[in-house]
């Protein structure tokens, strides 16, 4: 199965090499790094590895859009599976094998590497609120360690997905609308080395994120199930 690991990176020169080294040992995956307009040496460091596919964005367009660039690349090049991985050193390469095995065994469209223990009390309250509002039964809503299969790659490559701002609840809501299935696998994660999140870098950003995601949950919850509906129609036609 043609698989790729997509890593969006913005000013990650401190951690990017340490993140890439163990991933490059896993020859079954292509490694794609999307440089999100970094102003440090991230792009130069990544370009030293000839086996890595580098997608250099001309300007900074945000974590999700950078991720979507990698997903669109995989969609165009017929990858069957995409693994999203953070560049800040939080995710552990060894956990990928377990995640992939589980996805193959269960056949779920999306598998999330879950580590709810890492969040603070306030983050847990926010997750609980979003779970109630969105109806998505996933414990770790903000985990960036995910596996998407081909249907999920197709949906996330669309123009509609370009309207999203974060790779968490909005993405899951969109996939849920199309009837895709999710599963969660508990994984270990490292503590963030620099301690600053790209989403929660200030109280203003936290307030915007909370308002944005709550609104998204309330406005996007739909009873219709487009993909299941289309599958049903196709099965009837056959």
């Amino acid at each position, binding site marked *: 199965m043609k698989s790729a690991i997509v890593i969006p990176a913005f000013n990650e020169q401190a951690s990017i090499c340490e993140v890439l080294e163990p991933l490059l040992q896993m020859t079954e995956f292509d490694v794609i790094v*999307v440089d999100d307009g970094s102003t440090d040496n991230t792009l130069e460091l990544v370009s030293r590895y*000839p086996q890595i*596919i*580098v*997608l*250099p*964005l*001309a*300007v900074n*367009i945000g974590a999700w*859009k950078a991720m*979507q*660039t990698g997903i*669109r*690349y995989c969609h*165009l090049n017929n990858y069957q599976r995409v693994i999203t991985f953070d560049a800040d050193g939080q995710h552990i390469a060894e956990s990928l094998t377990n995640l992939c095995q589980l996805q193959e065994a269960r056949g779920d469209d999306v598998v999330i590497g879950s580590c709810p223990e890492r969040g603070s009390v306030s983050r847990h309250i926010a997750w609980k609120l979003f779970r109630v509002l969105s109806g998505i039964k996933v414990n770790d809503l903000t985990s960036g360690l995910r596996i998407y299969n081909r249907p999920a790659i197709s949906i996330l490559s669309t*123009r509609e997905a*370009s*309207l999203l701002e974060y790779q968490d609840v909005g993405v899951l809501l969109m996939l849920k609308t199309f009837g895709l299935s999710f599963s969660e696998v508990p994984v270990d994660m490292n503590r963030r080395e620099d301690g600053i999140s790209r989403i929660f870098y200030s109280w203003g950003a936290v307030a915007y994120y909370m308002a944005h995601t709550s609104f998204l949950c309330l406005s996007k919850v739909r009873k219709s199930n487009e993909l299941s509906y289309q599958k049903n129609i196709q099965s009837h036609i056959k």
Partner: protein
Amino acid sequence: MQHYQIFSSIVAVIFFIIAVVLVRRDNIHPGPAIRWTLLSGAILVIGLFPQISDILASLLGVSYAPIIPVLFACIILLLKALLNDIERTKDRVKIDRLIQRIAILEQKQMDVNRQNKL
């Protein structure tokens, strides 16, 4: 002609002239140009003949006639702001997807260059 009519006429004529000159200079697409020309025409008519507001006010049952053009102006401006936000969102998606496509094409070009070196 009353004092307020002179003032409203001057304002309306100035707005009409500015709008027509800017449209004639091709500073704006033909679609919005038509809308602005029509709007400046309507402002010119109401500015020259403010009595139209009095007639409209009596028809609509509004006791303070001068508020009618103000109300319409507010509605038009709010609608325009909403339409502008919708346009801006569409443009932003287009730009973001173009940036993504450029990155993908740049990678392809780097690949071709690398193969040519080999």
